[in-house]
């Protein structure tokens, strides 16, 4: 049985090849693919939800959970690796208290993504904080920058007490 189709029957359906671009649009808008969007896309394309889920989870770009408010991207490409990326990753995760496969801090502030390669190999090791590239990074420097960001956040938090959850 096909799921009910909310669009008029005479409307031309985009073909299956629109699936990944649609998911990319949703992800660009929300930072992740919400459950409702998955079912909506499934209905519109007449592709079963399990197939949409299969495609979604196959590609590294898609997320099923919201992003943190601040983004930390750490390069783990080959050039960065031989110039000390593992220690950088450890410093970032350690400073933010992330464990195992966890990529977003419990308070939803930071998301850490490990990127295959930025292509800024001449600056290895590289991290990108909130869109700003930091080249020739060292664990010590990275820890200090993250600590500063956290301190700035704490100040904001205490300045706006009405905002508490």
């Amino acid at each position, binding site marked *: 049985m096909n799921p009910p189709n909310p669009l008029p029957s005479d409307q031309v359906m985009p073909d299956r090849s629109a699936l990944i671009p649609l998911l*990319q649009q949703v992800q660009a808008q929300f930072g992740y693919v919400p459950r409702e969007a998955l079912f909506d896309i499934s209905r519109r394309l007449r592709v079963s939800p399990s197939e949409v889920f299969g495609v979604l989870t196959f*590609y590294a770009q898609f997320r099923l959970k919201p992003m943190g408010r601040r983004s930390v991207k750490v390069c783990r490409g*080959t050039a960065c690796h031989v110039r000390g990326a593992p220690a950088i990753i450890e410093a970032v995760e*350690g400073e933010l208290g992330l464990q195992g496969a966890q990529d977003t801090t419990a308070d939803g502030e930071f998301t850490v993504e490990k990127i295959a390669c930025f292509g800024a190999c001449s600056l290895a090791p590289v991290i990108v904080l909130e869109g700003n590239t930091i080249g020739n990074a060292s664990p010590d420097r990275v820890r200090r920058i993250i600590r500063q960001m956290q301190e700035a956040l704490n100040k904001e938090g205490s300045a706006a007490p009405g905002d508490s959850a």
Partner: protein
Amino acid sequence: MTHAYTALHAWADDQLTQRRSSGRARILVGLGTCGVAAGGQAVLEAVQKTIAEHMLEADVVQVGCIGMCFKEPLVDIILPGGPRLSYGPVGLSDVQDILVNVLLHNEHRHSRALAVIGDEPYDGLPAWKSLPFFAPQERTVLRNCGFIDPERLEEYVARDGYAGLARAVGEMTSAQVIEDVRRAGLRGRGGAGFPTAAKWEIAATHIARQRSNDAQAGESLKDYGYVICNADEGDPGAFMNRSVLEGDPHSVIEGMAIAGYAIGAGHGYIYCRAEYPLAIKRLKIALQQAREMHLLGTGILGSGFSFDISLKEGAGAFVCGEETALIASIEGRRGMPEPRPPYPAQAGLHGEPTIINNVETLNNVPVVIHRGAEWWASRGTEKSRGTKTFALTGKVQNTSLIEIGLGKTLREVIYDIGGGIVGGRRFKAAQTGGPSGGCLAEQHLDLPIDYDSLAGVGAIMGSGGLVVMDEGTCMVDIARFFLAFTQTESCGKCVPCRIGTKRMLEILQRIVAGHGEPADLVQLQELAESVRRSSLCGLGQTAPNPVLTTLKYFHHEYEAHILERRCPAAVCKALITYSIDPDRCEGCLVCLRACPGAAISGAKREVHVIDASLCTRCDTCRQVCKFDAVIVR
């Protein structure tokens, strides 16, 4: 040359002459991804500010990458009617100094001055081709990168852009185009090195057959077949394709249109990594320009040939570099490879004959057609013709994007072009071809870089990643690093790759953690051989290469880890300890304060001591110590 192209070229020349005769200088700021990462955007703003403040007669242009990543941010100044001078690395504090000196005081020398981008030296600045970095290079693929504004069609056309397409559609039959590519000896630049003309011929035959079948059956004729440009550059440590797409997007579009004409296809796709936002932006602009000038669309350059291109963004899967997986991804499915045959050239996208070529392969095609197969083939060796770009990275002095005639030795690349190893340390290995390639050792330094020599020692040409490693790199850790990558990227369809790489990775993790047994090496070798032989696609078949080559050329490092529980490069954490040399320690408290684990004790002007039970071996203390007092063993 077609009449339409002559008119186009005249228009482009006219545009450029107008701009040049303005008597204004042009300032070129390198804003490829590497330039932006090095702070190019801020430099661009500083340049604009300086021009405004000092009312300089100059226009600012953003260009792609000329390849000197190690000198980014780069600023070039083209004097009115004069030469082009290159400066780098240009810091914010240098901008005003350089611009005012050059443009107002006619003083061209500066501590940041690099060269003249021209044939003759100028005012004490050397010609760029005489620099040790550029002298051994030969630029075909990168012919326009860093020279043209990639967002302006006229700059590409003025350098004979689209002349290859004009010649193909105006003067040649499809078969003649394929014949030229065959005579040139162009082999696929994506890694495997398959002859491009052979692939095109198969697709052309199948498309012709379909067309004649439909015509005989009285059916209306439609578009047949596809040309796909594989721009899903996924090797970590490789950015050759990105630089071409960012710096010279029209060259790829032209190559695709010629390929479409050669096989008789009417549509193309560029499958580009979503992680390359700048490349995607420039491709979109270029596609739009090409359509406006009838270089794409119906009746290209006044001929009867029609061809258009759509852009698809990859969603992040290394395996989509494999042809059948890439097709599955465009069709909206999981990117899992299919058994071949049928090859995509027989039945590919939507079941139609499809050719898939790498960015660099397609970028070469217009040169082959415009300048002729013989000219193109004059570079390189007998079996590996032409030039090849490499992303030269790792522990090398000049991290850069380079292009060489095939057949040069590794030594020439690393020492002449690359300037040797950082800090004068000792070369240990070079890794080509990314996760699918192999590690070459010191005895291979004089090996010519060509398809067959590399294959002969267990490595591959790959798409052009070339990572240099020194004595501070652990080869067991590198094997583990690459295998962890391919293991994660394995699509899971076939058992040898899905489970074989997992078991191999577990063994490597054991060895690195100091729990390796001699029998592990035998099992690792056996597993590697069977994964290589029995996997479905190229990803699995090549995944063992880093392991096999390190086992072969760096066996002693594996033995040190297993038999002596020692990591000779002092990288593997479980096998190293940190201590402080009492003779060198000045008691400055710097490491003590920096240590995130509070593992260092001591007082001011007293020798510090590391508590091994608290130490996480994060290496921070060694990096911050100014007296080289931290010993790692």
